[in-house]
């Protein structure tokens, strides 16, 4: 085992998010001790109150930027981090809270809060990469814990993480799930969504919800045309592309076609 001082330091940061991606790291129950063996978990408030000051070799950032305070804080996180990796749909694409980007957020504030004057919020929820340079983006709502481990291991060994950019369909076929779109006409975002989750939903007879965001070169327009031909109405097409990754450029553009 390496001495504490020699081990690279890891920090886990939270912005606007549900904590689910951080929990994915804590969920690595079998591997967590091995992780702690090779990397010093220096700043991870969700796991421990003890905070070892930066700078940090690796920062995992969860959540999107939604307040002026967070906008400033991410700059400080970047300054303290050698490598900055975003984890999850919020940090990578603005998250479900980016639905506000399509509306006037002040109108919500007036409805929701008794004293709107206490609220200091940005008009949009945005990805970390919109504010600071990001070394690697890991998608997913939440991230897949095996993929998260792979990113940490790759970082430790100075190699590129094995994280695919292709469709969920390839994962479906590899795990031997029969295509729901072809056999049952179930609307499925798998052909335009990035793999990584292990194609969970289709294996349980539900179409892909697109939690991992757009795949490389997603052809959302052709898929939407096909779904429309099979009877999906405009409102549903809009909602289909406007979930956890609503603000990712490809899904945003597609949803706007159905406004």
């Amino acid at each position, binding site marked *: 085992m390496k001495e504490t001082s020699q081990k690279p330091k890891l920090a886990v940061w939270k912005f606007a998010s549900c904590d689910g991606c951080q929990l994915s790291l804590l969920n690595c129950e079998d591997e967590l001790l091995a*992780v702690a063996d090779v990397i010093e978990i220096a700043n991870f408030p969700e796991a421990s109150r003890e905070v070892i000051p930066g700078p940090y070799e690796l920062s995992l950032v969860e959540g999107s930027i939604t307040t002026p305070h967070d906008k400033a804080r991410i700059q400080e996180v970047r300054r303290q981090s050698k490598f900055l990796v975003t984890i999850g749909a919020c940090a990578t694409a603005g998250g479900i809270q980016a639905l506000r980007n399509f509306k006037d957020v002040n109108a919500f504030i007036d409805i929701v809060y008794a004293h709107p004057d206490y609220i200091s919020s940005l008009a949009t929820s945005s990805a970390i990469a919109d504010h600071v340079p990001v070394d690697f983006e890991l998608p997913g709502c939440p991230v897949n814990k095996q993929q998260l481990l792979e990113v940490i*291991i790759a970082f430790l060994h100075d190699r590129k993480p094995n994280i695919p950019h292709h469709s969920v369909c390839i994962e479906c076929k590899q795990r*031997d799930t029969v*295509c729901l779109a072809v056999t049952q006409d179930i609307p499925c975002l798998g052909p335009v969504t990035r793999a990584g989750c292990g194609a969970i939903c289709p294996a349980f007879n539900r179409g892909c919800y697109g939690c991992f965001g757009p795949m490389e*070169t997603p052809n959302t327009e052709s898929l939407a045309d096909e779904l429309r031909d099979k009877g999906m109405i405009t409102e549903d097409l809009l909602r289909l592309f406007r979930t956890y990754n609503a603000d990712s450029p490809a899904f945003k553009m597609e949803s706007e076609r159905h406004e």
Partner: protein
Amino acid sequence: MTPPRPLYRLDRNDFGILLNILKEKGYLTVGPTRRDGAILYGALESVDDLPIGWTDEQEAGTYRLKCRDDDALFGYNVGPHSWKKYLFPSKTKLWSATKKGSGFEIDRETDTPPKYAFIGVRACELHAIQIQDKVFMGGTYQDPVHAGRRRDCLIIAVNCAQAANTCFCTSMQTGPKVDNGYDIVLTEIIDKARHYFVIEAGSDRGAAIVKKLPVSPVQQTDMDAAAACVENAEKQMGRKVDMTDIKDILTRNYDNKRWAELEKKCLACGNCTMACPTCFCSNVEDITDLGAEHAERWRSWGSCFTMDFSYIHGGSVRPSIGSRYRQWLMHKLATWLDQFGTSGCVGCGRCITWCPVGIDLTEEVKAICDNEEGDPSG
């Protein structure tokens, strides 16, 4: 040339004996079963595991199971699986390594597959297996996984008595009648009075098995009925496409406008390549553990529709979806001929059925042939 082997009749009620003999001989019997709304290949414990009385209806982008009005054992067409599931598994560990001092020690993986008996292999699928044999075993370097699995594998083929709307084996000259490469071939015959198989061995191994079955000699009427089954499949062939000079046509239509149409339509999801029984590309990925003590090399099914497939330093060679579809089609129908001496397409229609937006290879070929651009002679 070996002399033709005799044909026999095997009663439907004795079909289970065939499975039992195979099991006694140590084979793992795999074949069509009904699961998740489709006919898939899986372990066959008994005849009842076959999709008895079921059939399928296929169109571009759709597949539905339907009940038949008889109890046919093989009354359906090919489904989403192909035999490459067994001969070229979707994920294989190639080797692993463990750190030893300043170096590392390699642990070779030895694939120890069961002795497979494939039940219900169709003519087009047999051609696909033979095409993959060339790919994996035809050159200087043999793929030990495919070769090892193929060595003891027994093939019980079935002549198609019907065809799907997406079938076009007659255009590819790969069916519907099984022609070679089988150990046993069956034709299922159901008439008002009887349900039986015409059975023929195609190898010594197959002949030894047939010898153990309670078969009876065939009559001319049985042979006529078997021929009628294949004729019926030919008549039902849902798609036809003229593949004459296809290599030259595709080669001189590299800039055809149709590729731009495909750019708009194709999802680049890779489903066609996963379902295709001849697609053989794979990714090789190295993984390491946290402590860098152990590393493994894995091979998994790859697809020419991914950006990674043609990634070289600096980027992907085929960034547009149209260029990736063109690469796939050109390889299947044109450059495969140069590479392996046959077409890479067997006309099974899986790429048509399992495309989520129903892109039809036969339609694309026709569109390009009918709208040639530039000077066809040049």
